[in-house]
């Protein structure tokens, strides 16, 4: 992979110092790190996330960005280093992909347990074995129970904006939890689009400095962090983390409102509703899948089929209320998972299981049909989407589509 050259990117000056640049999702995240004035970044190579670190290191060597940049000797160390840097008060950033994210798993668990508000980027990638480069969501999803906030973005612009929002939410004292931004490998990390890169002053007005206050590890504040506990205290601590994740919901809403006021964009925080107003059936998915789905929805709408799309933006905290609201009125929901959860209920993917669970308490919940598609970066075409939507329509009309099983789309049997 050739090292990226920042000088090549086109820069178009916009209002209030904002520039418009043709950049990839990875470069957008690197800009967010620069704009957030991150203090310590650790890197370790693994595709596709590592392009972020190529951009970051180039920004540093060009003098555009001042931070400690450490090339670690493993992902475990990568995440442990920033965890400790964060505890002495530094704002930190890190990231990984696929097996790299898993190599860091112990560090990921303690980062959430300790409520270290770091921001990470996951360039979603299939797990080994067999070795594969393409996107699957199982890497990031593996931390879903630990206290990491998790979101999936679908454009480079959203990647940049969400990274800034993530710092604000993660570091908010009511939350103080780590946040991972998932970017589909290749489709988002490596594709260039025009992105509005905000001015430093606008970012500064939105994102206050990181302040650990009484939790900062420093000789002026000689505290002991993470002493050993037993059954006498652990449950209260888990409960505090639970409460923090519950509070995150309100803090996220606040942050999106303020982001919208200052930057003039952000959208609805937890989900994106696409042609849902009069939809009879809905498709649900995350990440760059939104592209072919939107195309297919428009095509089907031309044929008079009332289908809509819901893109889940935040997976943790999970948008239960929004999904109940948007899906409550439809007859059937087709959930498209770019992941697997072997042996789970109905052999579904992770998203479908969560959606079913969120809709279950409703008075007359829609049927949920679960699909697995696009694994390993396989393209999900508009035709694939139409196939799935048709199955959802069939289920809605009382057809014999099995909603007690999961349908693999685009797979050679």
């Amino acid at each position, binding site marked *: 992979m050739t090292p990226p050259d920042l000088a090549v990117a086109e820069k178009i000056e916009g209002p209030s110092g904002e520039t418009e640049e043709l950049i990839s999702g990875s470069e957008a995240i690197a800009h967010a790190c620069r704009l957030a004035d991150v203090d310590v970044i650790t890197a370790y190579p693994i595709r596709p996330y590592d392009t972020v670190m190529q951009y970051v290191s180039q920004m540093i060597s060009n003098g555009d960005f*001042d931070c400690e940049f450490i090339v670690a000797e*493993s992902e475990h*160390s990568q995440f442990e280093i920033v965890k*400790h840097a964060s505890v002495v008060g530094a704002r930190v950033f890190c990231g990984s992909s696929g097996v790299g994210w898993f190599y860091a798993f112990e560090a990921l668990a303690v980062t959430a347990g300790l409520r270290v508000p770091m921001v990470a980027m996951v360039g979603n990638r299939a797990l080994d074995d067999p070795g594969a480069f393409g996107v699957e969501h199982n890497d990031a999803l593996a931390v879903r129970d630990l206290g990491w906030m998790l979101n999936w973005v679908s454009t480079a612009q959203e990647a940049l904006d969400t990274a800034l929002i993530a710092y604000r939410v993660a570091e908010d004292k009511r939350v103080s939890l780590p946040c991972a931004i998932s970017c589909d490998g290749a489709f988002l990390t490596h594709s260039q689009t025009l992105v509005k890169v905000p001015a430093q002053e606008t970012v500064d007005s939105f994102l206050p400095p990181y302040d650990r206050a009484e939790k900062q590890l420093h*000789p002026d504040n*000689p505290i002991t962090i*993470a002493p050993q506990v037993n059954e006498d205290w652990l449950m209260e601590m888990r409960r505090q983390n639970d409460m923090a994740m519950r509070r995150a919901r309100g803090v996220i809403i606040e942050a999106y409102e303020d982001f919208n006021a200052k930057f003039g964009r952000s959208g609805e925080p937890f989900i994106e509703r696409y042609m849902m107003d009069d939809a009879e059936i809905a498709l649900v998915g995350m990440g760059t899948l939104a592209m072919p789905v939107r195309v297919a929805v428009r095509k089907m709408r031309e044929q008079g089929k009332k289908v809509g799309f819901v893109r889940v933006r935040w997976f943790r905290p999970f948008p239960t209320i929004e999904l109940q609201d948007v899906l409550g009125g439809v007859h059937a929901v087709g959930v498209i998972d770019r992941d697997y959860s072997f042996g789970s209920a109905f052999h579904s993917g992770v998203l479908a299981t969560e959606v079913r669970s969120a809709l279950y308490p409703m008075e007359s919940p829609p049927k949920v049909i679960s699909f697995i598609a696009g694994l390993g970066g396989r393209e999900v075409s508009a035709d694939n989407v139409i196939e799935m939507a048709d199955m959802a329509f069939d289920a809605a009309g009382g057809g014999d589509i099995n909603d007690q099983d999961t349908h693999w789309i685009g797979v050679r049997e």
Partner: protein
Amino acid sequence: MPDTDVDTFADFIATQVLDPWKGPKKVPAEEYYTSGHRTCQGCESAQLMKLMAKAGGPRSIVLGATGCMYVANTTYYSTPWAIPWMHTQLGSAGSAATGTAAGLKAMMRKGKMKKEPINVIAVCGDGGGADMGLSAISAALQHTQYNLLILLYDNESYANTDIQVSGSSPWGANSTFSPPGKVKRIMNRRWKKNTAAMLASGHPECRYVATVCTAYPVDAMNSVRKALTIGGPTFVHSLDPCPKGWDYDPMYSHELGELAVETGIWPLYEVEEGKLKMCGKSKRIVSGQFKRKPVREYLKRQGRFAHFTDEDIEYFQSKIDDMWETWLIPGVIPFAAA
């Protein structure tokens, strides 16, 4: 190093100058590792914590990897640490020190924190440091822009999990993973790693590597003080008799530490700015002023070697003899010239 222009190298943050203490009477009374821990009676690793905290003083941050010095030390609501202390994962001492030092450095350079030299000390056991965390320690020793000390307390087993053999356990030692049985007398067939010399020779930019033993407390403290003063990433390896794991009466901890040095099993040395200096009795062993005691005197005092036959003891003795008679640098570098 050539001038590397922008940023990180230019604003080198100095270290605290911690002069050596000339004798026990010069050592200040203040303790920073105090009551509240529940380590075994006679625990030399706990003694090392106390000495290290004294040596580093109040402007220090200590990171402690999982192990006895975490679990037996920091029960919630009864921490013995009067200086800032934080847990780190079993294999993370190197990363914890690097991250802490990098965080402080970035904040000070960018004017987000008052500039002052703060000692960063990461503590790990032989299991956490010399086995699992070796790669992170190796990496830490390469990042010469950070001032940090990695202090490895070697009780020669995974002690906290009930005494299991590690890569730093002595050959043949009885542990819960290497119990002598009806058919196999010797279950641990690995010879103890030569960790300090490996790290010193493998990281030529590292400015200070030393071995110490708490049986010589002032020397141990001065080693820590020297490491922190010299700056950059440094490494100190301490041999700590452990009554539970080594199976002896706690009153003999100090004596066993001395015997480890006097038998030549634990050589004391420091590598400072690329120069090797043998220390204490080990120096006198090399110069011939002190005759090594037979290893039998050390082995026979500990239950973990109770199953040793005369042949086992002879084998052990021959390996220690090799160390002083055939090694390229006696007690330190284990090759003989071909």
